[in-house]
């Protein structure tokens, strides 16, 4: 009986947490000031949080797409930031 109660509690907690994350993800928006930032500015601000800012010449445009995904999963930058930074590095 106790096991079922614990399981019920765990299921409710996970569902609640999942819903909370979904609501947070859907509801989150960047301010106009942040949205207006260019890829170059985001590159300068975010890459140096962990390492030196990379040279755009380091990788090919295709490779930057791959590196962009890898970096997003490490630094947890937003999708908009990744897209803008990668577009800047691909030029």
């Amino acid at each position, binding site marked *: 009986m106790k096991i079922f109660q614990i399981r019920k509690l765990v299921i409710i907690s996970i569902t609640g947490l999942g819903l909370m*994350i979904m609501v*947070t*993800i859907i509801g*989150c*928006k*960047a*301010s106009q*000031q*942040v949205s207006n930032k260019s890829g170059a500015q985001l590159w300068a*601000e*975010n890459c*140096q*949080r*962990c*390492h*030196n*800012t*990379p*040279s755009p010449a*380091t*990788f090919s445009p*295709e*490779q930057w*797409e*791959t*590196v962009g*995904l*890898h970096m*997003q*999963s*490490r*630094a*947890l*930058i*937003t*999708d*908009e*930031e990744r897209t803008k930074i990668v577009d800047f590095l691909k030029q």
Partner: protein
Amino acid sequence: MYLKRNSLTNYNLRNMKTIKILSGLALSMLIISPMANHLYAQDQAVDTTLANRVTELEIELSHKKTGEDHFMMAGLATFGFVSNSTTTTSGGISQKTTTNSFPDVDHFEFSPLFLWRHGDKFLLEFEPSFDGFSLGVNWADVSYFVAPGLILRAGYLVTPFGTYSKRLAAGWIDKLPTDPTGLADYPPTSDFGVEAEGGLPMGNMKMNYDISVTNGLQLLPDGELQSVGAVDNNKNKTVTARLGLLPLSNSSLEIGVSGMWGSVGDANSPYESARSQSYAADLNFVKSFSPILVNFKGQYNYTFVNNQNYINPSDSSVYTFDNKTTSGFAQISFRPTGSGNNLLKNLELAFRYGKYITPSKSTWGQNSDIIDVSLDYWFTWRTVFKIGFQSSNGTSTAIANSGDKIKSESLFAQFSIQL
């Protein structure tokens, strides 16, 4: 008669004209025909050359098509030299040992990173690593970029406990030639499991979350924790989670808190009820105060295992101790990136203070203070040469040799490059 003769002459003249025209035409045909044949052959040759060229271009273009799958290699290589002097004082007697290692065996690493991208939704990562002794794997996982702010991952992954292991440990990223003592690998952070993570905008701020469910840790008879590996030692899973906040719109500051909870005892063993709890706080601040770029990083770890009985390896007696481990570091580095001097702007000076306390009255108890300083030269954004010095002062709190002093000094020369 005259008229008849005249008409005959006219008739002959007309005939002559016709003959001339016909002869001209025949002659023209004779001349033009080979020329036409030649021109036709020429056209055919041009068409063939053009067709061949188009085929060549098509083949070339097909090679340049982006396709769905993309493979690339990155990774890193780190190697160097260390000269170490360690003095151990026990019962008033000191013993000094000195070593010189080339390459630096504690900080050698060759880790190629293989990345496969399938479209823009899937990323496969595999990083084998040779550390001078063995060939291991840092991570091997598959990520699925589900939606903005949500990435799912499965495989052998780095759990989200603090930020050092996941973001800062690579030799070409770390400002110092050493890892913070006791923090980079305790509790162990590479594990088999699943993970959900993402970065989210919040007006002028940002937040990120990272949560993993993995096989977890295993409690050893001396009270230490190690990664359990691919086969879990019990029915329970370990949950690790980190929440990060970037309160400033320029992303210069990040504050994070992490937790790791799970059962660590082997099933059907005396440690079946053992559970561990770990907590971490991390801080990252990077800002340019022209002309100097200031980089501050810090992390504090705390790991606790609930009350258990352990086996003393010296006499196999059963004993207990307060099994909690703390470690932490604070580091700051300065780089004059705004300097007009090329040599100067590639130099970086870094300091780190570290603290490492393992459980007193255990077989591995110690209390250490570690100071690191390093002067780095950046050849490129991802290639660095470091000259570092580390001083470590430790006092043993272990059950067998409590009070012993360990003083260690090391000089490092290290080169690290991203592949």
